């Protein structure tokens, strides 16, 4: 078995999130059509693929609750290490120590951390996620509302990011080594080296303050109608998309360059397949597998909210919400938010792996038992 080296050395071949020993991938030199040497075809391949997906799903569904439990314990405990007292913060410097203590008691912040955690845990599973003392409202609608906002923003960023990165990466691959390839590389590298908040501030100054084409803050319109929402989200979505663009375009470039120089591509051209079919069945399918892995990870992260961009644009997303919760030691709100983002990240990871199984026939699971 010969291992196909990744062009550019950047192409991951192992689906992220698959635990060691759970599964592994053998990336054999792909043949025309992308099928491995011993790949079963027809109904056998279909049933084998689906049984593997079901196995993966079963294992993950068992693992996810334990992961979330551990994350919630760590979050609830670590937030206690943040300096400051929520009661003192709320009541200010003129309140007495006894008043601060009374406030903490009123807001469920006094007493043993174990008792408070168990109280929160019981409530969480019963659907009562507690009340955010920072915002004076129940935590559940607050978290889910901000999750919805973050999801819209993430999807908008993806709508901008995916086609642009695929186009740029593909152009670079087809023009590998030429001036246009180098120029795009330089621009993308330059963009990726600029922090999100710098790009964001520049966009704000030019498009919001100068041209007044977009709002400085996105909160007011983020819950309006669809047009208002798209309008409010544009600048933060562009910043998010730009921040991921360089890596993703590079990934597409690498994958596409590898695919169009592979023997199967040459064979497909020589045997006279239509160009569209070559791109669809052979180039895209092989070139985008690592990209899809990366997109899955990015999507999971973005759905959970981008703290920097959301804070900069005052966008009411989950990331910004959790920043405030962490700063103000709102353990209930923070843990609720972390649980939600944890579920999303884990599900995104699972979805990515399932997509990879469906897309990449070279993936083989090694049976631990034999």
């Amino acid at each position, binding site marked *: 078995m010969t291992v196909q080296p990744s062009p550019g050395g950047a192409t991951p071949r192992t689906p992220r999130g698959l635990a060691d020993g759970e599964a592994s991938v053998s990336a054999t030199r792909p043949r025309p059509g992308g099928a491995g040497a011993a790949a079963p075809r027809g109904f056998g391949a279909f049933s084998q693929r689906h049984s593997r997906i079901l196995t993966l799903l079963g294992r993950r569904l068992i693992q996810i609750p334990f992961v979330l439990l551990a994350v919630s314990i760590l979050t609830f405990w670590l937030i206690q290490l943040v300096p400051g007292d929520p009661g003192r913060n709320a009541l200010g410097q*003129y309140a*007495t120590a006894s008043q601060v203590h009374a406030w903490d008691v009123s807001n469920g912040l006094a007493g043993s951390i174990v008792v408070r955690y168990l109280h929160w845990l019981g409530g969480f599973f019963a659907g009562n996620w507690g009340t955010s003392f920072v915002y004076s409202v129940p935590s559940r609608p607050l978290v889910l509302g901000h999750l919805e906002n973050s999801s819209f923003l993430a999807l908008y960023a993806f709508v901008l990011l995916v086609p*642009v990165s695929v186009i740029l990466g*593909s152009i670079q691959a087809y023009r590998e080594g030429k001036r246009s390839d180098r120029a795009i590389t330089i621009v993308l590298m330059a963009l990726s080296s600029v922090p999100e908040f710098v790009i964001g501030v520049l966009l704000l100054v030019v498009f919001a303050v100068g041209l007044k084409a977009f709002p400085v803050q996105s909160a007011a319109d983020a819950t*309006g109608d669809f047009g208002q929402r798209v309008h409010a989200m544009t600048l933060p979505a562009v910043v998010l998309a730009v921040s991921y663009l360089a890596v993703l375009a590079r990934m597409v470039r690498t994958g596409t360059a590898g695919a169009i120089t592979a023997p199967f591509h040459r064979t497909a051209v020589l045997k006279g397949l239509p160009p569209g079919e070559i791109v669809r069945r052979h180039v895209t399918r092989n070139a985008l597998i690592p990209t899809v892995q990366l997109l899955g990870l990015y999507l999971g992260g973005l759905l959970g909210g981008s703290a920097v961009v959301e804070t900069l644009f005052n966008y009411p997303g989950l990331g910004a919400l959790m920043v405030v919760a962490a700063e103000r030691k709102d353990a209930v709100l923070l843990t609720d938010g972390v649980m939600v983002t944890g579920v999303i990240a884990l599900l995104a990871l699972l979805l990515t792996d399932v997509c990879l199984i469906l897309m990449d026939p070279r993936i083989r699971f090694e049976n631990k038992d034999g």
Partner: protein
Amino acid sequence: MPALITFRRASGLAAAAAVALTLAACSSATSSSPSTSASSAGAQGSAAAAASGGTYNIGLITPTGGIDPLTTAQSADQFAVGLASAQLVIENTSGTVEPQLAQSWTQSANKLSWTFTLRPGLKFSNGKPLTAADVVSTFDSILSPTSESPAASSFAGILKSVTGSGTSVVFHLDAPYSDFPHLLTGANTWILPAGTNAANWINDPVGAGQFILEKYTAGQGITYKKNPNYWDASAVKLAGVNVTFYSSEQSELLAFQSGQIDQLQSFPAAAAALGSSYRQQRSGFVKFDALTFNVDKAPFNDVAVRQAVAWALNRSAIVQTVYSGEATTGNDVATFPDYAVQPKGLTARSQNLAEVKKLLGSKVISFTITTYTDEQTYAQLIQQELNATGNFKVSLDVQTEAAYYANGSTSPWLAAPVTLTDWAERLPSQLYSLIYVASSGWSASHYSNAKLGTLVNEFEATSSAAQRQTLANQIATIEWTDVPVVIAAFEESDVYLSNAVRGSFPNGQDFPGGFDFRGISVSS
């Protein structure tokens, strides 16, 4: 190459889709920008705006302390409550108490009680009458032994109980207190309906203020409409107020520059960025930053060292650098410049290095100033000025606000040898009890002076103007001489107003000023 051609076509389509989406966003921006800059008021707000003085847009730092009228301590939270609430009296920018819900007040002959008479026909925003029972209930909540209200400390040792009936409310004092009406302009003294659960106020926001809180969106903003039941509703021209929450002052500055909000509370960076291109309104003094020495510990148990620090500071430079000129130099006396009785006869301290040498000789005093991030600029300037004298070697310990104000007796702001802490405007006697009394629980100086205490009590007990002036001079002399606290400047509150704003704010936009928007309107 055929594959490339196909790819180019696909690329073109994808690019066109991306461009179309972006253009759609821009076009949405163009079509919706009027309502956005009028801002986000919504159809209802716009209609109301067209019919009257418009809808005023304000930016506030996101409230994070809970919006509870009895406990709010952050200025943004207080603003949010204050727009929908009213006090018995307010204080104008000259420091004079003015009627609000109460139309008059008198002190009893024995000076141990104050009687406030409510305006007739007062109503809350829900239409129910506001009576003396509501006032009594509000102050009972503040004074309750289980009260969590920071306002309780303002009344501790002063206010014994409150009674009332009809439109008459009587405040019974522990001891004579000439400035008592000023105390009723303090935070958390908004009158609430009897039986209100203040902790749940945000969900049932009934008040007697100029506006009615219509919608609170956690972390995003608040919408208010005019309160037709406000006692002076005809003077309120605005149809409503939209508050948008921002995560930082810088975000507010950008929003103001882009026209999304109609006013901006001044801060040093704003003053530099905006210059004179906007209308600026001064609305009184808000705070001072106190450089406080622990007089129990060497070297600050030596009054000469404390005085040397006071003489080493360039106060004019502090006013220009730290406050961008929006402050008045202080003289180490805790009396705000707008207070009715100003001390006289003291030498105004300014930088005098000869005096420093005279006090310290060739000694070099090393110490650390402990403070928090908001005070960093000021702390650095003090450090530079003191180190430049050659008699001091100063280092800084700048902490987060949460760490600096941590709960407990070992909290840095109370336990560190030298601290830099901001104090909101209070009466001189209140500041005395907070800063100059070691047992107060808020005294980082650990300073006490029995004679000073006696003078302050006499000052509050008398209503004779001449006697109050004499006592104020004596109090100031002790504070100036012993100098446990260096007060180099009193910061003013400036507000930048957009050109769309018509009228001038009658009072400061703070709790003493009652968040008063009477006479204000905005043009479309």
